């Protein structure tokens, strides 16, 4: 009589233990599955950050682009302006020289002409 109650108590305890362990295993599997979704969330966050970083750089670059173009054309104009003043100050002498040369005509026989 007591024996059967003792045995059934033992069996119950054993069964309870198995249930606890089974539940623990189930939780473990769920936890491992959670790893995937948590990893995904973290990665999305990281990606968004990086994207933001990249976008800032892109905007910066766009701004630089127009600035670079303006600066380049400004510098070019300055140099072309310098050309103009060089031309104006140096041309007189050259013109004189050219005109003199054009009008200075020396009719000569060809150097190989025989007579």
């Amino acid at each position, binding site marked *: 009589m007591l024996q059967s109650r003792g045995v059934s108590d033992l069996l119950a305890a054993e069964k309870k*233990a*198995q249930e606890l362990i089974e539940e*623990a295993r189930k939780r*473990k599997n769920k936890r491992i599955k959670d790893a995937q979704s948590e990893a*995904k969330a*973290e990665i999305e966050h990281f990606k968004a950050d990086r994207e933001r970083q990249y976008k800032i750089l892109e905007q910066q670059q766009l701004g630089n682009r127009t600035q670079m173009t303006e600066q380049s054309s400004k510098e070019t104009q300055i140099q072309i302006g310098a050309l103009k003043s060089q031309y104006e100050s140096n041309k007189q002498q050259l013109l004189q020289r050219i005109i003199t040369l*054009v009008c200075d005509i020396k009719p000569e026989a060809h150097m190989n002409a025989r007579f």
Partner: protein
Amino acid sequence: MSLNDDDVAKQIQHMIAFIQQEAVEKVEEIEAKAEEEFNIEKSRLVSQQRAKIIEYYDKKEKQIELQRKIQHSNLANASRLSILKARDDYVQALKEEARQRLSILTQNRSKYICILANLITQGLLILMEPNIMIKCRQDDYGLVQRLIPDAMRRYQQILQIENINTTIDDNNFLADNIAGGIEFYALEGKIKVSNTIETRLEMIFNQMLPEIRQDLFGINQHRKYYD
């Protein structure tokens, strides 16, 4: 027997306690393991994806840098080209100014007579042909007619050749808007010598180009060879 009810009950209690203890320990073990595997799996996934994302964005950022460099290079090229074009424009402007000045100069009668006489003689000496046709401006017809005998004399003197005949074309003339000068034709128009002010300017200007560029804009710092 030795065992009474109490002892049996106690034994059973011990055994139950033992079973429960074992279960608790096992559960703890499982939970620890679960946590560990969770962490491993999560960090594996995260670092794998992170690496891909970093690589992707690094490449994109390199593209931006590349674009920047390309643009810079394009701008430098365009700038260089427009400066070179401006320089060339000024050189051409110089030629035009010279031409205009020459036009004015040849309106000075006495100077023009001297120039024309020399041009005619030079043309004859260059051709060395016995029969020559001369083409001039309509306005210069009379002047050329007067200057030819002397030119032919000089020709005969310099080359010691007697045989020289010239005719002036009275149907075709050079354009009125040129500065002056003449064209010579020999062998029924097969040989042509152009001795106009314009052609002289052209020739002289082209030969002088390096000098002109240097005098106008200064010595080229990048030039390496001078011979």
